[in-house]
């Protein structure tokens, strides 16, 4: 259906978006292969929602090429829409409906295009089986969001968009939600693109993180790659002669090798900590926002290669 087999799920080149005289996106390039979870990470106001809304076909663009499942979202027809799932930041729609009615009815829309989930199977999958007779507006925040995910995946989409899925969640609801996303990715190779301003969430959920700042993708890689690129120093801790020892080094491997070669077995409880990606991310964003864009990009160059 217009989507070349094996082609990327999302291909964007030189995407530009301008509101009035403000450039929100300044030549964004990205390509996402089918399958897996990709996080679009960035501070608030970086243009994440604008980007995802352009990809969803909800918003026009000022310039650039965009292809989502082989189709330009600006001209996507209903058959194309049927292959997408959309979960927005906050949805309070159809509050008077009963949970089971809404999943049963909304599945109908997809029937000409795909075999949608049955209501029981779907509610079971997102953990709302017990709430099936409840009115939607009586659900808790976390339950409501799981219903949104259910409605997003109801037509078994090839590509699922999640925009800031856990904003405002308590830690428990957050963990349940993350478990749900893991379950989805195990399921059937759905490609997931999620936006978040929370690095911790991106690390937990995504195989690949794209950092958006200043209207461009400034870093691209696996959480591990990004962390490695970001952290040049590591902290080595150990116990020796009953005392805690701490040493900061640029080359932890070399330091530890030397340490263990000369300690005569006195070193115990050895730990090596790299600076967390969080430190690096916050530093990166800060550097970017202070206008030091080139340095920020350089920091991550290794990771993107």
């Amino acid at each position, binding site marked *: 259906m217009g989507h070349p087999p094996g082609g990327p799920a999302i291909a964007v080149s030189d995407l530009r978006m301008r509101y009035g005289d403000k450039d929100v996106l300044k030549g964004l390039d990205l390509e996402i292969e089918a399958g897996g979870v990709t996080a679009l990470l960035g501070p608030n106001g970086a243009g994440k*929602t*604008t980007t995802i*809304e352009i990809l*969803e076909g*909800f*918003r026009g663009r000022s310039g650039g090429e965009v292809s989502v499942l082989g189709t330009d979202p600006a001209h996507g027809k*209903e*058959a194309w*829409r*049927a292959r*997408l799932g*959309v979960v*927005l*930041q*906050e*949805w*309070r*729609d*159809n*509050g*008077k*409906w009963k949970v089971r*009615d809404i999943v049963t*009815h*909304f599945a*109908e*829309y*997809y*029937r*000409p*295009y795909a075999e949608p989930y049955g209501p029981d199977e779907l509610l079971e999958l997102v953990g709302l089986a017990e709430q099936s007779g409840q009115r939607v507006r009586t659900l808790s925040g976390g339950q409501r969001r799981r219903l949104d995910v259910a*409605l997003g995946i109801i*037509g078994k989409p090839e590509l699922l968009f999640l*925009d800031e899925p856990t904003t405002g969640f308590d830690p428990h609801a957050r963990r349940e939600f993350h478990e749900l996303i893991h379950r989805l990715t195990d399921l059937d190779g759905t490609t997931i693109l999620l936006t978040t301003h929370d690095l911790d969430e991106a690390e937990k959920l995504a195989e690949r993180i794209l950092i958006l700042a200043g209207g461009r993708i400034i870093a691209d890689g696996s959480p591990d790659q990004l962390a490695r690129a970001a952290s040049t120093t590591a902290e080595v801790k150990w116990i020796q002669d009953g005392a805690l020892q701490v040493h900061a080094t640029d080359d932890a491997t070399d330091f530890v090798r030397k340490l263990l070669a000369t300690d005569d077995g006195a070193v115990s409880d050895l730990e090596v900590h790299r600076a967390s990606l969080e430190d690096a991310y916050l530093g990166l964003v800060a550097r970017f926002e202070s206008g030091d864009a080139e340095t920020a990009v350089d920091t991550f160059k290794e990771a993107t290669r």
Partner: protein
Amino acid sequence: MNTTAHEYRTGWKRALIETRISLTSPGDLMGFILPTGIAVVVLLFMQNADFEGAPVSLGSMNMPSLIGMNIVFGGITGMVGILAMDRTNGTLLRAKSMPGGMTGYLVGHLVSTAMFIAVTVIVLLAVGLPLFDGLEFGTPDRWLMFLAVLAMGIVAALPMGAVLGALLDNPRNMGLVIFPIMGLIAVSGIFYPITALPTWLQWIGQAFPMYWMGLGMRHALLPDAMAAVEIGGEWRTLTMFAVLALWAVVSMALAPRLLRRMSRRESGSAVAARRADMQRDW
């Protein structure tokens, strides 16, 4: 599978669910029962009053007008309210995110609003016939006229409501629709014969469907001799249908364009902005 036919079928199913929800939601029901109940009680008191020696009391005379008014008022405010609310809570955007969702959504709400109006009108009729003396509803020609006016009123009011609802993008501005309609009720001969008004006000009343729906319902439910009270001393059946049809055609021509524009502008950030705007005010 024919996707267009499927979208309409889905819309129909949606209408049945929405109607069931409306008829079982205290809020929706009270929105009809409270004002209508008060109006009926007022009319009951008006049964002791006559208008220039007409054969039927003022109360009985206004009962059909109330039914006509209810169709126009319910049709317009129903659609406007739904479209405005659903843009704020994201229901419309949800529809946009599904294949054929917008068609299903609109068909669903047009049909369910029509069903809700039909139910309320039948209730009004069932309450009004035994309570008010002089109403005539015993013969098939009157049933036919009643149904024809009801159908025409729904067909005119719903697209008008869709047009206004598409233009109005914040529930906060509902008053911009409600108050002018209230004003129209005053000059449409609903609670007192229009002929008692100055001529220029009569012309304003006659430019809008509210007056003609009242007239049509009086035609369907009052003794023929009551035509003498109307403008020109007759029911003006053809003119009535023609004016209502004109409003229906104009609204139907505008509605799809405006609804498409409304749908095109819908996005998550638009919904969020609208909600933030409302929260700032309240």
